[in-house]
């Protein structure tokens, strides 16, 4: 059986340490020179319920998770009952002796029962049953014959703050459980984890962390938000680094205030952002239009989750594509980018600020829950600060305003549609702007001709962005293929892996990922889309919003659609089976 190709699932109640255990193990594996892909699945409650963390381990970069579970670490009986069907033949279930598992349930499926006195080990070796997690971590390493030093290293890292005694007790617990598991079950379990000596240092980063780092590097110095899953971790990361980097981070009374604080800060000249999920963005929508009308740069992150209303608050979905494209009344340039990988989140984090300032209009980064919290191994240069360039476009800072000769007009008519933007506070450019239609000076007008000129000026930015900045979808795999899987956002990794499996099976397949959603050059896109053979649009919503968007822009209807809206991330196996069963049948 293969080494370094397995998935471990840690499952239990909220509060039992599922996430910290899973993340700790993942980090140990990465420090051992391997690649991981971690998925956190949790419920909307603080304690109880059912959560899991699934770590996939490989020797090569992993784009996504896999359905098959090789080792299930069950913290309660519920976890055994729910996840046993996912465990492969020859796999095992590791659990405390206090949890009774029906042997017949496992035997018929060829699954090993790795029952261990985890709580007893914690109590005897560490002095408290709270260290049961540590025992489980040690036992997991023992069963997979993983290098104990890596586990010891993580224990030291994680418990250092709590003092030497805590570290020592946890080490003793882990060691005892490791030795017992290796001796008793090591021979029964075929999947092993072997460290790669001399492998370079690597990171584990999720989408929201990468996005926040990108924003910081772009010079974002203001973030105002209201807490909402799954966007909050962007604020949390920036809040933790606010003091070091001089970022003003504020929690406001609601999402309406959150976006308006950012608009005010941006109008003053500071790069500013807000972030929420669909429900919070609903409250921001009127102000989104205000930013567009006053030509105020702004970055809005919308991390999608299951809707409508409160929907599935801790689960993934892509139901807001058409919403963000048409949010707010009236017409204005719609700049929407949708990263699909952790690296793309970093890029979106800084690129959005440059686009927002160049076009003096709000830019939406559309993410989704599964992208926001997926933990991927990146090479150290996977986050590359040296590629970040700050381009403030036609911003007139105080030095530029010192040199200004002619009277300043905020919304002056230009061929590009972009009017130089003065930072308020300089005697050379005292001006007003308004969400009402306005003349070049920013004064309210109802004059039809002036309206036409200003509307046309704003919409020229849309055309210019489509031509100059917005990119065609990314292609993965062969240039020509019988089947093209088309998607956006977090499904990208699973589409790529599904493509690899389909190609290996002799079904020539490639992938198109829409990163830039709007505005797009319709002629170029139409050429590209009409050139595809069989177009299958895959997305995590019911109605096929990306498929409709493509049809609107190019006239081409998807040949097939794969839609998923149960709140769970899409696996490559699901894509492959759907393509085989529903799509390739009869071809």
């Amino acid at each position, binding site marked *: 059986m293969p080494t370094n190709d397995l998935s471990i699932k840690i499952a239990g109640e909220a509060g039992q340490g599922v996430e910290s255990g899973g993340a700790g193990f993942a980090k140990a594996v*990465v*420090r051992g020179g391997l690649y991981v892909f971690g998925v956190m699945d949790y419920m909307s409650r603080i304690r109880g319920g059912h959560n899991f963390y699934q770590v996939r381990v490989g020797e090569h970069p992993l784009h996504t998770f896999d359905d098959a579970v090789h080792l299930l670490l069950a913290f309660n009986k519920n976890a055994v009952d729910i996840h046993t069907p996912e465990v492969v033949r020859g796999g095992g279930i590791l659990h405390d002796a206090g949890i009774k598992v029906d042997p017949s349930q496992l035997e018929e499926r060829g699954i090993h029962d790795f029952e261990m006195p985890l709580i007893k080990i914690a109590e005897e070796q560490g002095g408290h049953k709270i260290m049961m997690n540590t025992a489980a971590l040690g036992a997991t390493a023992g069963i997979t014959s993983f290098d104990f030093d890596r586990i010891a290293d993580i224990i030291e890292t994680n418990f250092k703050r709590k003092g030497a005694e805590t570290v020592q007790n946890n080490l003793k617990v882990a060691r005892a459980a490791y030795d017992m598991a290796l001796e008793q079950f090591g021979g029964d379990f075929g999947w092993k984890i072997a460290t790669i000596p001399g492998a370079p240092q*690597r*990171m*584990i*980063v999720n989408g929201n*962390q990468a996005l926040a*780092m990108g924003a*910081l590097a772009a*010079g974002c*110095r*203001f973030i*105002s938000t209201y807490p909402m899953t799954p966007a909050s971790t962007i604020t949390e990361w920036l809040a933790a*680094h*606010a*003091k*070091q*980097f*001089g970022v*003003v981070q*504020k929690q*406001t*009374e*609601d999402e*309406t*205030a959150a976006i*308006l*604080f*950012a*608009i*005010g*800060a941006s*109008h*003053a*000249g*500071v*790069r500013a952002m807000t972030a929420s999920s669909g429900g919070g963005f609903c409250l921001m929508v*009127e*102000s989104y239009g*205000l930013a567009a009308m*006053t030509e105020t740069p702004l970055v809005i992150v919308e991390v999608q989750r299951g809707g409508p209303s409160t929907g599935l608050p801790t689960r993934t979905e892509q139901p807001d594509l058409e919403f963000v494209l048409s949010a707010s009344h009236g017409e204005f340039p719609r700049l929407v980018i949708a990263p699909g990988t952790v690296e793309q989140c970093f890029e979106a984090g800084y690129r959005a600020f440059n686009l927002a300032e160049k076009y003096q209009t709000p830019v939406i980064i559309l993410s989704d829950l599964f992208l926001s919290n997926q933990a991927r191994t*990146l090479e*150290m240069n996977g*986050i590359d*600060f040296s590629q970040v360039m700050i381009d403030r476009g036609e911003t007139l800072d105080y030095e530029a305003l010192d040199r200004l000769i002619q009277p300043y007009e905020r919304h002056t008519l230009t061929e590009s549609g972009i009017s130089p933007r003065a*930072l*308020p*506070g*300089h*005697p050379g*450019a*005292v*001006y*007003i*702007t*308004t*969400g*009402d239609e306005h003349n070049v000076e*920013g*004064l309210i007008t109802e004059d039809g001709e002036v309206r036409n000129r200003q509307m046309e000026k704003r919409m020229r930015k849309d055309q210019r962005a489509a031509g100059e900045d917005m990119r065609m979808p990314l292609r993965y795999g062969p240039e020509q293929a019988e089947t093209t899987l088309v998607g956006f956002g977090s499904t990208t990794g699973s589409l790529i892996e599904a493509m690899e499996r389909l190609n290996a099976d002799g079904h020539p397949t490639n992938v198109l990922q829409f990163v830039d959603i709007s505005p797009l050059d319709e002629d170029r896109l139409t050429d590209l889309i009409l050139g595809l053979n069989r177009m299958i649009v895959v997305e995590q919503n019911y109605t096929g919003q990306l498929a409709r968007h493509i049809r609107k822009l190019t006239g081409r209807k998807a040949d097939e659609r794969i839609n998923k809206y149960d709140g769970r991330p899409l696996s490559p196996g699901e894509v492959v089976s759907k393509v085989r069963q529903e799509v390739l049948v009869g071809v």
Partner: protein
Amino acid sequence: MSDLKLFNTTEKSTWCPGCGDFGILAGIKAALAGLDMYPHQAILVSGIGCGSKLPHYMHVNGYNSIHGRALPVAQGLKLANHELKVIAVTGDGDGYGIGQGHFIHAMRRNPAIVHVVENNQVYGLTKGQYSPTSEKGYISSFSPEGAIEFAINPLALALAAGATFVSRTFAGDVKQMGVVLQKAIQHRGYALVDCMQPCVTYNKLNTYDWFRARVYKLEEEEGYDPSSRDMAWQKAQEWGDRIPIGILYQTEDRPTYEEQVSELQAGPLVRQPMNGRVNDYEALKLEFV
């Protein structure tokens, strides 16, 4: 004192002749000039309504936002550039109705922002509907049998929410308004200036004459101490035959919002370098290994 004319523009207002907003406009100009300020040093952030057009009618920086939302824009601006004198200008529907939540939370934070509420007790621009400060029983197109809601007491609300400067002025007394506004602009923290501003077209109840018969100045009231929260609370309840105008309450004991933001100790955020610590970025990655 700077030249009052610096703040003049040629832009014609859309206000009705006799509108109380003219008095408020004159008061703001006089207060800024009286404090030797120049148009580039201040920004007027308004919402939507007749009164929120005010920034268009004087030469000063302005951001005319949307209904109910002047205060959060003003607070973002203040955090980004606390050297700017930020004055929020809203109506009563704007500030106390749709924007009520922002009103309460702004006072909790105590940013050094002047909040001028042009309180005409009616929705003027949408043609006369009742507002949060319309008296109970007020008849309008949206309340043909009379409003059954109790009117909001903005001054009591402000005191309860922790406002550090609470005042009421009357558009019929521009002189006092100018003085109160000057003190509001100089105040360390959030300053509420609730301006009773008769709507000559729609509000046939709370007219100039109605107010003139009732208002009296707190600064002329013997023994009144605006540093006393208890006295202010008493005066905030007074409405009817006698209506107090002037400064009800002022304290500078509480630091402002922006004084408490550690990142602003190095100066206005907009003047801080965007990439001052670029050399520290690379080290961020070590959090993830």
